[in-house]
């Protein structure tokens, strides 16, 4: 049953690569924005919060189209980046960008909540012991927020793996370049006798999703043990 054709393997491999890159690259931005939203009061905070959450509520096709007109070759940012040799449109990097944007609100929410749950008096204690702001963040805040950061990464990874609408709108559905697992399943369901291939990929998707859940449980428990056990 699970004898995947090379094309199907390519779709699986591409999906994993896109989801991993989208999660890892958006992580530092996610941590920075979550920290800003959790700890700082500034002009435009509500606006930033709204923009970050927009992909969660907008139809994915709209997000994909906005990405297309912004990061496409003729787009405002896309034309500039193309001069620097960075191209998103119809490349797997564009798929990673679309997945990263779609997953971003989930990443930021989880990390922000864990920042807000940290006792800030511990950061005060760190500063009386000689830790400057960035050091206190790296040695106290971030380690204590680790379970939330892991939860956010797993959510973002899952979202990125399953992203469909924004990706297909922005970078289309090109086998070997932008055809992810979801897009491949969709394609197989649209052609005659594609059911077996679609089912094989569905099983792969379930296995990956379960593995991600188990891994996150394991990491979260390990991180949690560090605070309560000895």
């Amino acid at each position: 049953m699970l004898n995947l054709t090379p094309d199907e393997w390519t779709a699986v491999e591409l999906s994993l690569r896109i989801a991993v890159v989208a999660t890892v690259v958006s992580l530092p931005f996610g941590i920075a924005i979550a920290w800003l939203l959790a700890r700082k009061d500034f002009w435009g905070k509500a606006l930033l919060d709204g923009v970050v959450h927009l992909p969660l509520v907008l139809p994915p096709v709209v997000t994909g189209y906005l990405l297309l007109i912004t990061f496409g070759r003729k787009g405002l940012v896309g034309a500039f980046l193309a001069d620097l040799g960075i191209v998103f449109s119809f490349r797997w990097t564009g798929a990673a960008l679309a997945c990263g944007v779609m997953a971003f609100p989930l990443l930021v929410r989880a990390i922000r909540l864990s920042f807000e749950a940290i006792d800030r008096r511990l950061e005060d204690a760190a500063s009386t012991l000689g830790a400057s702001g960035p050091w206190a963040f790296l040695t106290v805040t971030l380690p204590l927020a680790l379970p939330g950061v892991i939860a956010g990464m797993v959510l973002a990874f899952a979202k990125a793996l399953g992203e469909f609408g924004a990706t297909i709108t922005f970078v289309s559905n090109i086998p070997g370049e932008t055809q992810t697992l979801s897009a491949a399943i969709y394609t197989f369901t649209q052609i005659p006798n594609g059911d077996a291939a679609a089912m094989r990929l569905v099983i792969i998707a379930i296995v990956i999703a379960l593995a991600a859940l188990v891994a996150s449980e394991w990491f979260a428990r390990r991180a949690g043990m560090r605070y309560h056990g000895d």
Partner: protein
Amino acid sequence: MIPKSGDRFSDKIMLQKSMLLVDVEKRLGEFQVAAKFETAGGATALFGPSGAGKTSIVSMIGGLLTPDRGRIALDDTVLFDSATRTDVPAHRRRIGTVFQEGRLFPHMTVARNLDYGRWMSGLAADPAEQDRIVDLLDIGALLERRPGRLSGGERQRVAIGRALLMKPRLLLLDEPLASLDRARKQEILPYLARLRDDAKVPMIYVSHQAGEIQRLCSQVVRIEDGQVAATGGLKLLDEARS
């Protein structure tokens, strides 16, 4: 209220070089703190009822709260001066603080908690000093544990050790026994007395318990309603009772 200075002890202070000078004003909502006092090393108590502003004053000395106006100086170093816009950040003041709730880092072992201040202050490792403080506070058996597995008294002893091991120029103890029951208090008090005699670090000891102060301090600054009501020797404690 004008601080009393007729007391023989405070006359003696005047002749010595001033160690810590505090003259701060801070508005906190409806509450106004306006405190001025000097201490001359050793152990000084900030004594007064709950809500009198003792913790606010200590936070300003440590750099965790910024005064609206005033001046704080430790020996020759100006830590805060609103006139010259000087404000040394907390992490560069080298003032150790022991908080009421300990505030140990829950994700680090006791050993790493103890070493944190030395590490962050960029001091060279000093195993002899570390051993001395660990012995002084009897926390050698706890080093590999995490704070979640310590009793309240153990936690406070580790917090005291952590503050001492950054080699502070001044140690602030903000009601360090308030969260402990009577038996635990009796357990910690001898360590604090040893600390005062052996560690030779000047201490500001915040408490509303006259008994603790009697055990540890030689000078008293009485705080009432955000202001210094009196400064002097231990007999101020008796006046407060009557």
